[in-house]
């Protein structure tokens, strides 16, 4: 099945999740399932209620050119693995405030499992393969976010048997 709606957007402006999802399936009657994941800036680090770890703003740095290239590769891989009718990745860069969306991935398929699995795949792979770096502003000095082992583990579960 050829996906008829593949889209990658890397942008500074905020976006409207509802409008983006509506566009994904607009005017179509062949889609049975749409899965989406939205990542948002949240106002705390780690466990909820930790009062020493408030986040005032987040700045996303990216590698222009390579970012678009990697996102397109990730989306193409999802389309190879699942019978998708549409897929969408939007990722912002620049400075953003708590409550604002950072990233949206969405997939559409005739069947539920393909939509759900490919959506999880897109965000898990994107986390470890797309060249973005987060800088957190809290009470004190801004600090670069460390990569997490749990992200590598989440991506690893999508590795195919012939990959090392």
């Amino acid at each position, binding site marked *: 099945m050829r996906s008829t709606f593949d889209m990658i957007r890397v942008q500074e402006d905020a976006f409207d999740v509802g409008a983006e999802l509506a566009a994904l399936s607009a005017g179509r009657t062949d889609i049975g399932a749409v899965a989406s994941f939205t990542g948002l800036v949240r106002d705390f680090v780690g466990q909820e209620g930790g009062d020493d770890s408030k986040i005032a703003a987040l700045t996303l740095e990216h590698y222009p*050119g*390579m970012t678009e*290239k990697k996102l397109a590769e990730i989306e193409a891989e999802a389309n190879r693995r699942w019978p998708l009718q549409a897929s969408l990745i939007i990722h912002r860069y620049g400075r953003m405030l708590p409550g604002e969306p950072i*990233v949206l991935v969405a997939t559409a398929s005739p069947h539920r499992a393909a939509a759900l699995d490919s959506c999880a795949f897109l965000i898990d792979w994107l986390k470890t393969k797309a*060249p973005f*770096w*987060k800088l957190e502003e809290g009470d004190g000095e801004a600090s670069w976010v460390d990569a997490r082992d749990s*992200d590598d583990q989440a991506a690893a579960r999508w590795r195919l048997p012939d990959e090392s």
Partner: protein
Amino acid sequence: MNIRYFAWLRTKVGKAEEEVSPPADVTTVGDLMTWLAADRPGFAEAIGRKGVVRAAVNQDYAEPDHPVKPGDEVAFFPPVTGG
């Protein structure tokens, strides 16, 4: 050769980008890292800590044994943290 630095590696090195002309015996990403480290103390310190610097050649991830040549765009950065 166009060198690019991102995130805290950019602040360590003190620049986002530079043009360099390494000698002919610099043929891999690893060679280039060693050569760049010679007179960039921030870069030297970063690559001294194991596993914290990643590289890309012409916008694809590259291991230290990956070849580099004049005209390449080579980027160095910490592990990615997007999404």
